[in-house]
């Protein structure tokens, strides 16, 4: 594989292969930043991968009180699923179980998508006919009486089918500590990009998968080519100096958001250099035949 080198870090001539997804985003506000964050964290919990969670979700950014519709601190959360039906089901369930239940929370739509999910119109029935509808500046909201006051929720949330899921960076280093340092820097840069999230724990996944398995009925299994403990015994993709691989997976509301996030992540990892951080950066793909979005690392280099 011909290699590019930036600041001493080897860059694979490879690309991340990504897929179209249905994406939606909501703004959750709370009486203070702690409880706004709590509602968003709860709603985006257990949402690392569509394979087992039904959706991928995460916190996009925090919004200061001056910029929220109700003047309270807010957090913007994004949610992605493989179909608009899945996205709707996941959002309505998560809203009902995680945000409605969270003290002080309120919900606003933030994605002007081509489609709409009726969230408030589903949650309102919790009000048992005590709920009230309010239209302000053309947008409908529901006021649902709850035990700490009122749950305030916008009636409809935008949904876009132009979202992209599966942008990624494979960060490879000598050992766990150095690789983690580089990956954490990459995640921080990715998270600073708006309209994109890294849904895995802390933005990082250590169990990258390949398609297929030796067991019947398993669609995916460990990516042995990137497992350092198997370097000598399998068809490994790792060099002599690589002892640990961590992956950053990125979902974005748009194609542009994913490439901007990958670009930011790459820059942060390269800036750290091979002594402190990663020796090599790669990207995961399936040969380019499955996903329509290809993010070539060489085009995203700083």
């Amino acid at each position: 594989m011909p290699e590019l080198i930036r600041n001493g870090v080897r860059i694979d001539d490879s690309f991340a292969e990504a897929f179209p997804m249905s994406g939606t985003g909501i703004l959750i506000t709370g009486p203070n930043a702690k409880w706004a964050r709590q509602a968003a964290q709860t709603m985006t919990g257990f949402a690392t991968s569509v394979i087992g969670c039904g959706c991928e979700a995460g916190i996009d950014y925090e919004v200061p009180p001056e910029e929220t519709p109700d003047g309270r601190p807010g957090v913007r959360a994004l949610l992605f699923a493989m179909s608009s039906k899945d996205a709707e089901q996941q959002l309505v369930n998560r809203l009902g179980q995680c945000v409605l239940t969270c003290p002080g929370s309120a919900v606003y739509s933030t994605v002007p998508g081509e489609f709409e999910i009726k969230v408030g119109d589903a949650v309102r029935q919790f009000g048992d006919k005590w709920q009230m509808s309010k239209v302000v500046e053309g947008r409908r909201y529901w006021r649902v009486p709850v035990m700490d006051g009122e749950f305030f929720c916008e009636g409809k949330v935008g949904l876009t089918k132009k979202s992209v899921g599966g942008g990624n960076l494979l960060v490879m280093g000598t050992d766990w500590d150095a690789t983690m340092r580089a990956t954490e820097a990459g995640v921080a840069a990715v998270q600073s990009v708006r309209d994109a999230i890294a849904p895995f724990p802390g933005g990082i996944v250590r169990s990258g998968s390949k398609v297929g398995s030796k067991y019947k009925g398993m669609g995916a299994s460990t990516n042995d080519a990137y497992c350092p403990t198997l370097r000598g015994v399998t068809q490994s993709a790792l060099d002599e100096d690589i002892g640990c691989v961590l992956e950053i997976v990125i979902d974005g509301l748009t194609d542009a958001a994913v490439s901007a996030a990958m670009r930011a992540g790459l820059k942060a990892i390269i800036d750290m250099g091979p002594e402190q951080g990663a020796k090599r950066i790669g990207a995961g793909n399936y040969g380019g035949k499955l996903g329509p979005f290809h993010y070539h690392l060489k085009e995203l280099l700083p």
Partner: protein
Amino acid sequence: MKPFTFKLRQEPPQRVDLSVLTPDRLAGLSPAQIEKIEIGVTKSSTKVGDIFEIISGDLKNLRYEGGSSRFDLIGAKLLPEFSIHVDGDVGAQLGRLAHGGRITVAGSAGAYAASGNIGAEIEIAGDVGDYLAAPLAGELSGMAGGRVMIRGSVGSRAGDRLRRGVIVIEGSAGEDLGSRLIAGTIVVLGATLGRVGYLNKRGSLILAQRKDFGPTYLDCGVHHLTYIGLLSRSLAPVSSGATRLLSGKLRRYGGDTSVYGKGEILTPIEG
């Protein structure tokens, strides 16, 4: 581009129906054709040209230079993205059944202003007659959307059968404010006369001055409501008084329990 202007030549000899003078209905007509439009409502004829001098301009923005309390139905069925400004008074049914757009009046308005308004933003600098945003006789609901901003005071039965939207009255309100409210929100910064919120179903009345609301409104305690925060921010650019009223906790009275009873009157804790 300058607005399309109707400059007042003389006070009309009779009430005039100006519902035909909206941007969409004037599109494609020459000034000469517009001058021939009949606007009188009696047997004797009154044409646009008799009352107004026409100064052509951008039809999206209409302007009346000079008003009259005989100017009825200005901006009726106005469509979104158009605007009308009246530099003077207007008569009855300003913005009747307006779908959208913006109407501003520098003077005062007659009865039934914003009657059946569906989505327009209407602002009146002076006072308004009775039946603000109310339905005409026989109609089942009043205003169903949009926002109405009154800097002065209003007559009786303001917001009758309001169904949706926001009405802000910076002055005082006459008898029976918010009677038969279906839903929607009315904010009053001044005093209110007589009964308020009579037969209110699900509407919100936010009153700066507290008084006895009668036995069918029940005290539900003092609360900080998220909706009030949103409304406060929404009104911040147009009414500092309303924003001040909405910035703190409010006491909620639930009612009118003589009917459906899911509505409310919100007032400051003191005052």
